[in-house]
């Protein structure tokens, strides 16, 4: 039957057959319905075919288009950037805030903000902290070896200082050298001598690169010192040279002896020596002298968790730093070149030196 319907629809019937079929169709509504249904279905099928071809034709045309040229022509230039921005700005914002948070929390938790003055972590600047925070601070990796003067106040007068270090005289007129990290951020600076007299001082010059600072005593009660017993060595000291230092890790002098153990300092810092000498917080700024009484350097720090690795700024760089001082300071800074310590025993040397070594208190 389908065959007949198809033949009829495709016009493949002879005239007689066609007439017969049409008659049949007229009397049989079921057949008529089938014919119509078949016709629509075939049309749908053809439709499908046409559409299919049209789409594949269009895809072929689409392939030949120069999309970049069209885009450039049609879209404003900023469009592409703006689209990317629109799409990713939330991600970018989130990423940026996470990154910032991570950076700052890391820096904060490692104590970066509180130890900017430490040269490198693991390096221990030896100024002494004279506040109650000392225990907590010492636990920090930085461990600026400081001592809480208040905690010791039972043994001496109440001292409201925050930090203390050591300094020693450069000239008889009251110029004192110490480490820059001792006096960094200071409100006011006092120099305390051997007998407990305090003198007000001010910073006149600092060279943070070498960790050197020069103070001047500006107190009326200060009278000039007698001529300096030590000289400053301009050349580099040899390994194994015996050295000693005098400083204020507490409220009194402490002598430390040792030897130059390396010609470079922390992590190969050529500005410093490494010295095998016991030093503690408060020793920062102490003079480092050889057996003949020449100043070899300025004690500045030690390495954490390493025994016998203390560091001192070489006197060569101390002199270099002083040479770069402002002219009016430089004019006053005439270093002594007469050594009255050579030939003396260690005991006598210390007796002479102690009047020229001071405690530097920072408020």
């Amino acid at each position, binding site marked *: 039957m389908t065959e007949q319907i198809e033949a009829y629809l495709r016009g493949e019937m002879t005239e007689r057959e066609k007439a017969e079929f049409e008659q049949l169709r007229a009397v049989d509504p079921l057949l008529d319905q089938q014919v119509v249904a078949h016709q629509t279905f*075939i049309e*749908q099928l053809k439709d499908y*075919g046409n559409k299919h071809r*049209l789409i594949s034709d*269009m895809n072929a*045309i689409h392939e030949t288009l120069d999309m970049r040229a069209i885009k450039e022509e049609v879209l404003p230039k900023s469009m592409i950037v703006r689209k990317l921005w629109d799409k990713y700005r939330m991600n970018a914002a989130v990423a940026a805030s996470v990154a910032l948070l991570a950076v700052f929390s890391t820096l904060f938790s490692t104590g970066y903000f509180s130890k900017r003055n430490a040269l490198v972590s693991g390096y221990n600047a030896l100024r002494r902290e004279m506040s109650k925070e000392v225990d907590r601070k010492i636990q920090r990796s930085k461990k600026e070896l400081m001592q809480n003067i208040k905690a010791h106040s039972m043994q001496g007068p109440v001292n409201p200082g925050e930090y203390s270090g050591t300094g020693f005289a450069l000239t008889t007129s009251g110029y004192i050298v110490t480490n820059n990290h001792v006096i960094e951020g200071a409100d006011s600076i006092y120099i305390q001598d051997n007998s407990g007299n305090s003198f007000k001082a001010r910073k006149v010059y600092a060279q943070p690169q070498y960790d050197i600072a020069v103070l001047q005593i500006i107190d009326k009660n200060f009278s000039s010192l007698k001529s300096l017993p030590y000289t400053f060595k301009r050349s580099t000291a040899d390994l194994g040279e015996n050295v000693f230092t005098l400083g204020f890790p507490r409220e009194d002098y402490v002598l430390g002896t040792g030897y130059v153990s390396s010609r470079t300092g922390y992590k190969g810092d050529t500005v410093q020596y490494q010295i095998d000498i016991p030093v503690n917080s408060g020793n920062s700024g102490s003079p480092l002298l050889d057996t003949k009484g020449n100043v070899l350097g300025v004690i500045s720090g030690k390495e954490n968790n390493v025994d016998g690795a203390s560091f001192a700024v070489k006197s060569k760089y101390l002199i270099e730093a002083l040479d770069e001082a402002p002219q009016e300071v430089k004019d006053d800074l005439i270093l002594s070149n007469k050594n009255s310590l050579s030939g003396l025993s260690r005991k006598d040397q210390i007796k002479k030196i102690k009047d020229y070594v001071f405690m530097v208190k920072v408020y």
Partner: protein
Amino acid sequence: MSKEIKRSVPTDSEVILGILNGSKDVLEKVYKAYFPMILQMIVMNNGNEDDAKDIFQESVLVLYDKVKSGNFELNSKLKTFIYSVCRRLWLKRLSQLSRNAGNVKDFEDVLPVEQDLEKHEERDKQFKQMEKALVHLGEPCKTIIEDFYIHNKSMQEICEKFGYTNADNAKNQKYKCLQRLKKIFFQAD
């Protein structure tokens, strides 16, 4: 923001004649003339290149259907018609994706094309249904049906292609296939 698009555009009557004749050349001209406009509209309204391609091709199908059914009245520019269809289609797509409930920023005049699209949707449904049915039908039936009804090949050719011993065998096979296709097609309804 919008740049004026200038390019060689085929005349509208040329296009309509071409569509009725099934001219590939005209299709290509239409594509090249109007696709950039649609790309602009869609990309500027949260779409991308592929969206533009889909939408534009659909609008061409709508145009073909309309022209072939004979009720395309040239009372507006062809360009406006295509633009309006695409705009409508894109709005619908956007609301489906709920990317943008609002409006499309317009670059051209707009015609009401809802009726055309309703028709189109119905045809599209049929199209998809037929496609599904044909896939379901499987080989060799699919190819036989396509060759005979769509590509208008003679029974003799099909017979040779599939290696049937004679045209009658092939014919029988074709009828079986057609019956099955009808069954699948109307079942899915």
